[in-house]
C-alpha cells in the first residue's frame, strides 16, 4: 500500500501551519477590532427635577450600574451603600458588579459609548486617566450636595479630598479611601529588642546592623512591589527638598533623578543592599509572599507601604504583631518639610463617565457611599479611614495600625503632599524592572539613576503622550 497522494498531505500540513499562523496573528490583532462607530450621544438624563433631597435629579425607578474593582478592599462596601440608596429610592435598582480587569472589560464599552454609570477605576489594570479625561463627568456638585444626614458633604470631608482626583483643573475622580504612606513595623518586636523606629537613612543603616546581629534583615521586597522602595525614596527626597523636588518629578524634568536629595538616598540604599540588609531573592518572590516574610516570619523588621498593608496581610500576620506605622525616613535630620509630613492622598478613584445612561444615578450612589453609615461601615470592616472625617474612634476599632494612622495624620497637620506623575503616565511597569535590579544588587545607584531618568525622558520626549503640567 502506498500513500495515496503525498503531495496533498504535504499541502495539508503547510496549510495547517499557515492556518495556525493566521489564527495566532489574528488573535493578537483581534483586540483592535473593537472601535466601531461610537456615537457621540450624551447621557440621556430624563431625570426628575433637582432638589435638596434629590440634588442630581435622579429619575423615578431608575437603573444604576456600577463596576467596582475587586481588590484588597473587595466590592461589598459599595453594595452596602447601594442597599442604603435602594432603601431611600424605592423602586430604583442599583446594580453593583465586581471586576479585576477594569481596562480590559470596559475598553469596548467606552469606545461603544455605553459605559457603566459608576466605575472604581483602580488596581493593576486600571484605565490610565490621561486617556479618558475628556469622557468623564465633573463631580463638583456631589461635594456641594447634602449627605443623607443633611450636612453639606464638603464639610464632612478631610481637607484636600478633591486634589488627587483633579486633573488639569477638572475634578473628575472621587477617591474614597484615605491612604497614607509610611514604614510599618511590629511594635512588640521592636520593644522586645529595644529598637527605636528610624527617622533618617542613617538611623536605618544603624538599625540594619542591629537587626543583622539578631539574624534578621532590615527589609523585604517582592518582584511586583519593588517600587514600594521607589515610593519610599521619592517621598523621602520630597520631604528633604520640598516642592522643588516634587515639581521636577511631576513635570518630567531633565536630570531630575540626579538631584542631591535622590542621590543621597540612593547611595544610602545602595549601602543597605551591599551590606545584605534586604532579604535576598526578592526579585523572584511573589510580593505577598515577600510581605509575609515581614508580617509572619519576621525575617525582615520593616516594610514600606501604603496604609492598606494591614488589611492586605490580615490573614498572614503573626499573633501579637502590633503593627504600627511611622512616617517615611528623610535623608538628614533637618529636611525642608518636617519629618512628620506625609504622602497622603485618597485612593480608589471612582469615576462617572459622561456618556453613561444614568449620570445622576452614579452620583447618587457616590452620595450614598459618603453617608455616615456607609463610610463608618467601610472604616470598621476594612480598618482604613475614608475621606469622610471623624468616623474612626480613638481605639481604631481595636487596631494599633489604624491608631497610628490617626496619630500620624494629626502630627502631620497640613504638611500633606501627593504626586500623580508615575500613575498618570503608567511608568510603574518600567520602574519595577530597574528597582528589582537595584534591590538585588545587580545595579548600583548610578545605574538606578540612569534607568529612572530614561523612563522619565521617554515619556517627556513622546509627543503622543498628553502632558499635564503641575504648577503647585
Amino acid at each position, binding site marked *: 500500500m*502506498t*500513500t495515496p497522494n503525498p503531495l496533498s*498531505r*504535504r499541502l495539508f*500540513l503547510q496549510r495547517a*501551519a*499557515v492556518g*495556525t*499562523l493566521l489564527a*495566532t*496573528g*489574528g488573535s*493578537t*490583532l*483581534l*483586540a*483592535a*477590532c473593537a*472601535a*466601531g462607530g*461610537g*456615537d*457621540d450621544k450624551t447621557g440621556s438624563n430624563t431625570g426628575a427635577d433637582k432638589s435638596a433631597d434629590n440634588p442630581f435629579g435622579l429619575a423615578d425607578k431608575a437603573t444604576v450600574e456600577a463596576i467596582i474593582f475587586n481588590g484588597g478592599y473587595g466590592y461589598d462596601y459599595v453594595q452596602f451603600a447601594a442597599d442604603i440608596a435602594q432603601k431611600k429610592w424605592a423602586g430604583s435598582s442599583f446594580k453593583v458588579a465586581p471586576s479585576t480587569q477594569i*481596562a*480590559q472589560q470596559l*475598553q469596548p464599552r*467606552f*469606545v461603544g*459609548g455605553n459605559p457603566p454609570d459608576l466605575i472604581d477605576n483602580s488596581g493593576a*489594570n*486600571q*484605565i*490610565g486617566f*490621561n*486617556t*479618558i479625561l475628556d*469622557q468623564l463627568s465633573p463631580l463638583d456638585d456631589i461635594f456641594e450636595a447634602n449627605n443623607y444626614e443633611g450636612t453639606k458633604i464638603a464639610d464632612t470631608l478631610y481637607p484636600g479630598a478633591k486634589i488627587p482626583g483633579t486633573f488639569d483643573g477638572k475634578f473628575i475622580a472621587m477617591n474614597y479611601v484615605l491612604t497614607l504612606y509610611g514604614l510599618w513595623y511590629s511594635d512588640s518586636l521592636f520593644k522586645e529588642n529595644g529598637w527605636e523606629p528610624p527617622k533618617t537613612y542613617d538611623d536605618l543603616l544603624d538599625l540594619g546592623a542591629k537587626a543583622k546581629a539578631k539574624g534578621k534583615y532590615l527589609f523585604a521586597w517582592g*518582584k*511586583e512591589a519593588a517600587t514600594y522602595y521607589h515610593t519610599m525614596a521619592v517621598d523621602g527626597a520630597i520631604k528633604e527638598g520640598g516642592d522643588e523636588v516634587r515639581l521636577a518629578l511631576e513635570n518630567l524634568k531633565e536630570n531630575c533623578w540626579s538631584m542631591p536629595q535622590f542621590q543621597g538616598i540612593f547611595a544610602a540604599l545602595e549601602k543597605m543592599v551591599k551590606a545584605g540588609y534586604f*532579604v*535576598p*531573592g*526578592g*526579585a*523572584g*518572590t*511573589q510580593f505577598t*509572599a515577600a510581605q509575609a516574610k515581614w508580617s509572619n516570619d519576621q525575617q525582615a523588621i520593616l516594610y514600606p507601604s501604603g496604609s492598606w498593608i494591614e488589611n492586605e496581610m490580615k490573614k498572614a500576620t503573626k499573633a501579637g504583631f502590633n503593627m504600627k506605622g511611622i512616617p517615611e525616613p528623610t535623608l538628614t535630620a533637618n529636611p525642608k518639610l518636617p519629618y512628620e509630613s506625609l504622602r497622603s492622598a485618597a485612593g480608589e478613584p471612582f469615576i462617572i463617565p459622561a456618556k453613561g445612561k444614568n449620570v445622576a444615578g452614579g452620583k447618587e450612589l457616590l452620595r450614598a457611599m459618603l453617608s455616615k453609615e456607609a463610610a463608618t461601615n467601610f472604616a470598621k470592616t476594612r480598618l482604613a479611614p475614608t475621606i469622610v472625617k471623624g468616623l474612626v474612634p480613638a481605639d481604631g476599632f481595636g487596631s494599633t495600625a489604624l491608631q497610628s494612622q490617626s496619630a500620624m495624620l494629626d502630627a502631620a497637620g497640613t504638611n500633606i503632599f501627593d504626586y500623580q506623575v508615575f500613575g498618570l*503616565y*503608567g511608568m510603574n*511597569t*518600567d520602574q*519595577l*524592572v530597574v528597582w*528589582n*535590579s537595584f534591590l*538585588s544588587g*545587580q545595579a548600583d545607584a548610578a545605574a538606578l539613576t540612569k534607568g529612572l531618568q530614561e523612563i522619565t525622558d521617554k515619556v517627556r520626549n*513622546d509627543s*503622543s503622550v498628553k502632558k499635564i503640567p503641575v504648577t503647585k
Partner: protein
Amino acid sequence: MTQEAVPDGGPKRSVVRRRRPLTFDRVSFMVVFLGVPLAVFVIFVVSPFVQALWYSLTDWSGFSSGMNFVGLDNYVKLFHDDIFLKAVRNNVLLAIVVPIVTIVLSLTLATLVTIGGSGTGTVRGLKNAGFYRIVSFFPYVIPAIVIGLIWAQVFTPSSGILDAVLSKIGLSGFENYAWLGDARTAMPASMFVMIWGAVGFYMVLFIAAIRGIDPSVFEAARIDGAGRFRTAISLTVPLIRDNVQTAYVYLGIAALDAFVYMQALNPGGGPQNSTLVMPQQLFTTAFSKGQFGYSTAMGVVLAAVTMLFALVVFTVNALTGGRDQRKVKVRR
C-alpha cells in the same frame, strides 16, 4: 460530479467548462459551502487584519472613538523603542532555542519508546514504553497557566522546592537564589518551563509518525547492521521530516507568543526585561498606557515576525533537501 472528470484533460476541458444553469440546488450549495465559510473568514480573519493595519497608522487611545491618522509614526517609534526591541530579541531567542530543544528531546523519547528496545526479535520500544509515554504526556494535560504558576512556586527563593533541594545537597549558594529574579537565569528557567510543558505532546506526535513508517524498513536496516542511533538519524528523521517541520513551525509560533508562560512566571518582564516578550509589551502599552494605535503596530510587527519565521522554516527545509527525501518515501 464524477461526470465532469475528464481523464485526458487538455483541450477538451474548455469545451466541457461552459456555463451551467444556476439551479436552486447549485446556488444553495455554493452559499452554504462557499459563501458561509468565506464570510466567516472575511469577517473574523481578514477584516480584523485590515482594521489592525489601519489602527496601527493612527494615534487611537483605545478608549474613545476618535483617532488621528499619523502615518508610519508608530512604526518609526517602535524601531527606536529599546524595550520593544529587547522584547523582539527575546522572542527570536525563544523561537530558536525552544523548538530545537523540544524537538530533540521529544524525538529522542519517541525513538526510545518505538524502536529503541531490545536488539533481537521484532523492532519495538523499551520495556514499559506505555508507562513512559503516559508520564511524558502528562504535562500537556495541564493548562499552560497552571504550569507557569506551579513552576513559579518551584523557583521561589528559599521556600521553593528547587532552592530547598539544592541547599540540602550542600550547595549553600542556592539557599536564597532567585531563579526568575536574576537576569542570568530568568530566561533559561522560563525556557525550561516551556519545554517541559511541550515535550510530551510532540513526543506523542512523533510516535504516531514513526508508527506510520513500515516496520520492515527498520528491520532491513538492522539486518544491514545499523545501530539504534544510526537508525534514528539516517532513517527515522528523514522519514518523518514533514512532521518535524510542522512541529518546528508550531513550536516557533508558541515561542513567539509565550505570553501565558511569561505572564505567570514574570508578569513584569523579568529582571532587566530579560524575559519580556512582544505580546506582554503589547498588552501593557494598550491597557495600562492607553496607546492602542502604538500597541496595534506592535501586533502587526509580531504577525510579520511570525510569518517570516514560518517562511524561514519552510525555506530552510526545502533548501536542505526536504523535497528529495519525500521522493524517496513515495518510491517506497
